[in-house]
């Protein structure tokens, strides 16, 4: 009996291992849907590949992908670990976070009270002024204070339009909350996954290369009006300490363009960042990108009326780029889009006509038709992909053409901006050659398309990566 039991056990284990190997080696699959990438395959066994270790390395990777239930096992492991660590983390930090929230509320209340007391004191002083001289002095003081407040309002107004003239707000540390570091190195601040801060000192060399390239371009093409737009994100601001990266200011000070032509999407406090960016993805959300759109439009076509957002529709869930490889199961959020009254435009993506750029309209329609919300929406799928070249032709506009050189952040703006230009050309230098089969030449491109306005738009990566340098 014992021998039979042991024989079944030993044969069972050996059969399971061999079956796994057989499936992995003989019936390989192509796509790893869980991690949204191609599956690893076994490398050919040669003396060379064995001696340099590449065969062995690839075999390990292939087995991790191709063995039966490997992906399910990985998923289960991640779910279990993130469920456990997440629950413990929540339990351990609950008291701290509640105390932080209470402290934040108390501070806000104090600030409000102080402002009310200031106004009441002004009123009281005016009432109590005994003679005309005293009253005049007091009024002059109050007038000076009023003018200072008006100047402040003007500054705030310009800053809210993305214009920087050497003065900007201090970062408002409006929370006693702190950053927590996940095992992947990603940070968590309140509900947001964050990348670490990147400061000017570490990026300056690469920024200088880009600044030099931009200034050369500006100098070489006086017939073109250039605009730059820098999008600050969480890497530019430390919400816990109030430190800024200094990168936007550095770009502003060194790019040879008028202040009105080099604006920025500036972040002064966490509550703004929270409203403007996804929690789990590195991109700006519908609200943030709309703000970006109004600032860009104000910069290029001052006085032009932007489209108004009509209705906000939740289209499903999103577990974005920052959650990948971190804790996808735990970090998901709902994602919604604003509807706009888009006029029809002709869209050409990499030389091919397309009926849409991004599926935002289709997704909204799907929800309105009673369809199921998306399980895992993607920024690129909603707002439009990173196309090497996208051309939008709007017969109803007579505002001429514009070339936008950017990266994925501008995907969310293209449909909106296309409503204001006869032709909008968008080029993503990372993908241009691969997707169009042509080498991008700025000089030839602007000449060929008669472009007289160029917008350079992006976040820090755009201004430091080699791939975006215009030569």
């Amino acid at each position: 009996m014992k021998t039979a039991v042991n024989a079944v056990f030993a044969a069972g284990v050996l059969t399971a291992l061999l079956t796994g190997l057989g499936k992995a080696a003989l019936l390989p699959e192509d796509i790893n849907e869980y991690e949204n990438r191609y599956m690893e395959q076994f490398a050919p066994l040669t003396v060379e590949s064995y001696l340099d270790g590449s065969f062995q390395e690839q075999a390990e990777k292939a087995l991790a992908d191709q063995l039966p239930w490997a992906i399910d096992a990985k998923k289960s492991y991640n779910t279990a670990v993130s469920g456990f660590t997440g629950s413990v983390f929540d339990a351990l930090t609950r008291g701290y976070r509640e105390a932080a929230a209470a402290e934040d509320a108390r501070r806000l209340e104090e600030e409000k009270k102080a402002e009310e007391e200031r106004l009441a004191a002004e009123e009281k002083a005016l009432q109590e002024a005994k003679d005309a001289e005293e009253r005049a002095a007091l009024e002059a003081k109050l007038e000076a204070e009023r003018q200072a407040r008006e100047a402040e309002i003007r500054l705030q107004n310009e800053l809210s339009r993305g214009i920087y003239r050497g003065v900007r707000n201090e970062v408002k540390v409006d929370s006693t909350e702190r950053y927590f570091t996940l095992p992947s190195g990603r940070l968590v601040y309140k509900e947001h996954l964050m990348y670490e801060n990147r400061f000017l000192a570490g990026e300056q060399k690469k920024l200088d290369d880009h600044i030099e390239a931009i200034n050369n371009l500006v100098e070489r093409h006086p017939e073109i009006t250039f605009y730059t737009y820098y999008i600050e994100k969480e890497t530019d601001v430390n919400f816990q300490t109030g430190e800024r990266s200094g990168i936007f200011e550095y770009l502003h000070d060194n790019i040879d363009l008028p202040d009105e032509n080099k604006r920025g999407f500036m972040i002064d406090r966490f509550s703004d960042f929270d409203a403007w960016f996804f929690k789990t993805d590195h991109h700006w959300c519908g609200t943030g990108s709309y703000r970006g759109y109004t600032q860009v439009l104000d910069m290029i076509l001052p006085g032009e009326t932007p489209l108004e957002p009509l209705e906000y529709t939740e289209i499903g869930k999103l577990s974005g780029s920052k959650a990948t490889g971190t804790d996808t199961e735990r970090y998901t959020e709902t994602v919604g889009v604003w509807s706009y009254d888009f006029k029809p435009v002709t869209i050409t993506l990499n030389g091919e006509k397309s009926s849409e750029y991004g599926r935002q309209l289709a997704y909204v329609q799907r929800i309105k038709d009673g369809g199921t919300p998306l399980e895992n929406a993607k920024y690129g799928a909603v707002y439009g992909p990173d196309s090497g070249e996208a051309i939008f032709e709007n017969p109803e506009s007579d505002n001429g053409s514009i070339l936008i050189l950017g990266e994925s952040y501008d995907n969310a703006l293209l449909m909106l901006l296309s409503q204001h230009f006869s032709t909008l050309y968008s080029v993503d230098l990372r993908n241009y050659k691969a997707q169009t089969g042509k080498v991008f030449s700025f000089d030839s491109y602007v000449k060929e398309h008669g472009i007289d306005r160029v917008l350079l738009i992006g976040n820090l990566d755009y201004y430091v990566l080699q791939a975006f340098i215009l030569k």
Partner: protein
Amino acid sequence: MVFSSLPFLFIFISLTCLFYFAFRSLKWRNGVLLFASLVFYSWGEPRLVLLMALVVLAAWAGGLGIDALKDRPKARRACFIGTVSLITLNLAVFKYLGFLVSNINGIFGPVLTVPVIELPIGISFYTFQILSYVIDLYKGNVGVQKSFPRLLLYVSFFPQLIAGPIVRYSTVESEIGRRKEDVNEIAWGLRRFITGLAKKVIISNGVARFAEIVYAGDPQVYGRLMYWLAAIAYSLQLYFDFSGYSDMAIGLGRIFGFHFLENFDHPYVSCSITEFWRRWHISLSTWFRDYIYIPLGGSRVSRGRWFFNIMVVWSLTGLWHGASWNFVFWGLYYGLLLVLEKLVTGRLMAKLPRPISWLITMFIVILGWTIFDLTDPAALSTALRTMFAGGPFRPMDVLAANTGIIEGAFYIPLGLIFMFPVGKLFKKIESSAPGLILANLWSAALLVLCCVYMFGSSFNPFIYFRF
């Protein structure tokens, strides 16, 4: 190749078993094992497999010489010394030359170029195995192995090649030429292998994460409590990793009909340092006892000479673990403690209640592992300072630094439970047929769980790269 990897499970061991049991003749089966062992070693060290073969060749030729020169003692002795020197020189060059030159440069300035030599994995293990063959042959404790492939199989046999135990030739001498595999033994071996795999993949890797996070972080943040917990976590990591590998080696050996001696006997239940070293890495301590300590005279000498013998053995034990001063200090630390225990503290410890003597022993062992772990003197000094004079526990700072510590902390209680001999309960269950079914089902489930861990986590530290 390491046991706790997908290629080992799904490519290596499955195919090795398939081909091994496909043959009936022992000669062919040995051939399969030899081929598999060379593939196993070359998987990670494709070129250095030749070095190992050359060292075995030297031992084989030396062995033939020692055997042939039976009637000429002086020549036989010369042959023996020559062979041992050659084998030891190989270890010295590959493992210790860089360390030696660095120290010479440290004393006299940069007079020599520090050689950059790749350390062949498992060199300390296979060198000691080969030495045991040559020494035992010289002493007449084992017979000469005339077949080079068989000697190569003994040394390169994959279960014990890179992480021990140090299997002496006398242990497997007869089984290389005559053994019998039995399905009950195979199943036992499988169960033992899976137990070892779980120790490594689940517990050791789990607690390792904790220690790694703390030592990589800011000591100000972690403070005294977390540094002690990190030291405990590292102690558990070492035990479950090393004893897990030994379990896997013993289990794999049994699958192919070999009976290796036990290497760990629940060392963390020890109530004295002497007891601890009777239970920890038994094959290494007995090797040093039989081949260094006793030939030096052991304890049957003057007190001064005995002290010298102990210190020599323990500094060599330390050096065996790695070419770095912290290992020497670690060895001397144990040498001194053992001397003290023999002379003074042993009698005092024996009078204490067992829980107290256990706590004292564990304190010493954990402190020892901290010295062992941190090769960088600055890191070691910081760790010791923080353990004894660090700041208080600040949980929010700890979480802010790395929330991964939560996962690591989960495995510490598991390790603390399974370091005691709870597995013996399972052994009793296996004696009945229903119990055996249960044990096999448990092992199968454990294997599946290990696979889930291997798929899910890429964190799989390999601590034998220095050995």
